[in-house]
C-alpha cells in the first residue's frame, strides 16, 4: 500500500526541532489556459489558503502563466513511495497488449 507522504516535501522524519514554526507549505497547481489541466508549478509558504492563493498568483503567474490556480496543503498529499517502485507499478509491466502497437494489421487496412 502507499504510505502518506507529502509529494515533494521531505519525509516527516526530517528535523522538526524547536525553531519557530514557519507557515505551512502549500503545493501550487496552475492551469495555463482553458482546455489544459492544472499542472504542478511549485510550492510556497502561507498562513492560510486565501494567502496561499494570493502568494501563488504573485509567485507563479507574474507573466500571465495562468488562468486558474489550485493550492493544496503539502501535508495533505498522499504519494506512492519510491521504495516500492518495482512492486507497485509491476502489474502494468507485462501487459503490452494494452497498447495499439501490440497488434499486427495487414498493409492496406485503413482507419484502424
Amino acid at each position, binding site marked *: 500500500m502507499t504510505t502518506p507522504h507529502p509529494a*515533494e516535501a*521531505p*519525509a516527516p522524519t526530517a528535523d522538526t526541532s524547536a*525553531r519557530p514554526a514557519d507557515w*505551512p507549505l502549500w503545493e501550487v497547481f496552475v492551469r495555463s489556459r482553458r482546455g489544459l489541466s492544472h499542472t504542478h508549478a*511549485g510550492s*510556497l509558504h502561507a498562513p*492560510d489558503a486565501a494567502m496561499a492563493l494570493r502568494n501563488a498568483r504573485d509567485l507563479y503567474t507574474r507573466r500571465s502563466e495562468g488562468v486558474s490556480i489550485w493550492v493544496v496543503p503539502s501535508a495533505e498529499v498522499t504519494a506512492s513511495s*519510491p521504495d516500492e517502485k518495482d512492486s507497485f507499478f509491476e502489474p502494468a509491466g507485462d501487459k503490452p497488449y494494452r497498447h495499439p502497437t501490440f497488434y499486427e494489421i495487414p498493409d492496406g487496412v485503413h482507419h484502424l
Partner: protein
Amino acid sequence: MTTIAPEETAAREAVFDATVAADERIEPRDWMPDAYRSTLVRQIAQHAHSEIIGMQPEGNWITRAPSLRRKAILMAKVQDEAGHGLYLYSAAETLGTGRDELLDKLHSGRQKYSSIFNYPTLTWADVGAVGWLVDGAAITNQVPLCRCSYGPYARAMVRICKEESFHQRQGYELLLTLSRGTEAQHAMAQDAVNRWWWPSLMMFGPPDDESSHSAQSMAWKIKRHSNDELRQRFVDICVPQAEALGLTLPDPDLTWNDERGHWDFGPIDWAEFREVLKGNGPCNEQRINRRRQAHEEGAWVREAAAAHAAKHGEATR
C-alpha cells in the same frame, strides 16, 4: 532514522549512481548520499540568498529611476529576484531544510551569498551594468543548471533562466541609451562597466585548480562545466556586445587568440575576491544589516497573518 543494513545502502547507492549516469533526475524522496544532499543544500541556499540580497543594489535606484518606464521595469526586475529566491528556498526545502532555518543562517552569517552584491551601485548606469554583466554572468552559470541532476533545482532554474533573460536585455538597452546619449552619459556608462567587469568575472568562482567542490559536483552532474570554462564562454559573449554598445572592457590584455578560438584576458585579482568573501567588501555589512532589518520590520506582518489564519481556523499545522 531507522538503521539500514550496509548491503541495502549499497543497493540504494547503485540505483542512485545508475540514475545519475543515465542522465535521469533524482527526485526528493529518492535515496541519495548524505554528501549529495548537503552539497545541494549549500549550493541552493547560497543561490537563494544571492537572489534575496541581490534585490538591494538595484532596489536602491527604484525611487530615482529617470522615467516611469525605467521605474516600472526596475520594480518588475527586483520583484523577480524575490520570486527567484522563493523558488530556490522551495527547492532546498524538498531536501529537508526549511526556509526559516536557511534565513537564520543567512542572517547570522553562517551561509553566504554571491560576493558580487557587496559592491555598491553608485550611479544609474550601474543598474544597466548589473543587468548586462551580473545577470549575464548569472545566466551563463545557470543555463547548465537547468540540466542539474536534482529535479526540483533543475525545474526552478528553468523558470529562473526564462525570467533572467529580460533582466539582461533591459540592462543592455539601458547602457546603450546612455552610451548613445550626451558625453557625460556615455562616460557614466563606461565608468559603470569599468567597475563591474572584473567582479563579474569573479562570479564564476576560483580557477579550476583551486576550486574545492568542483570535481565531486561534476561527477554528480550538479555542475556541468568548470568555472574557467564558463568564465571563458562569458568573456567571448561579452566582447562583441561591448563593441556594439560603443564601450570598452577595462582589460588591456584582451586579445583574440586565433589558435584557441577564444579571447585571451588578463589576470583576475583573486586577492580582492578573497577579501570581499571574508567580509571586507565595500557593502558586506550594509547588505546583511539591511536584510536583518527588513526581516525584523516584517515580523508584525507575519504575526498578523498567522493570527488571522488562526482566528479563521485555517492554520493546518
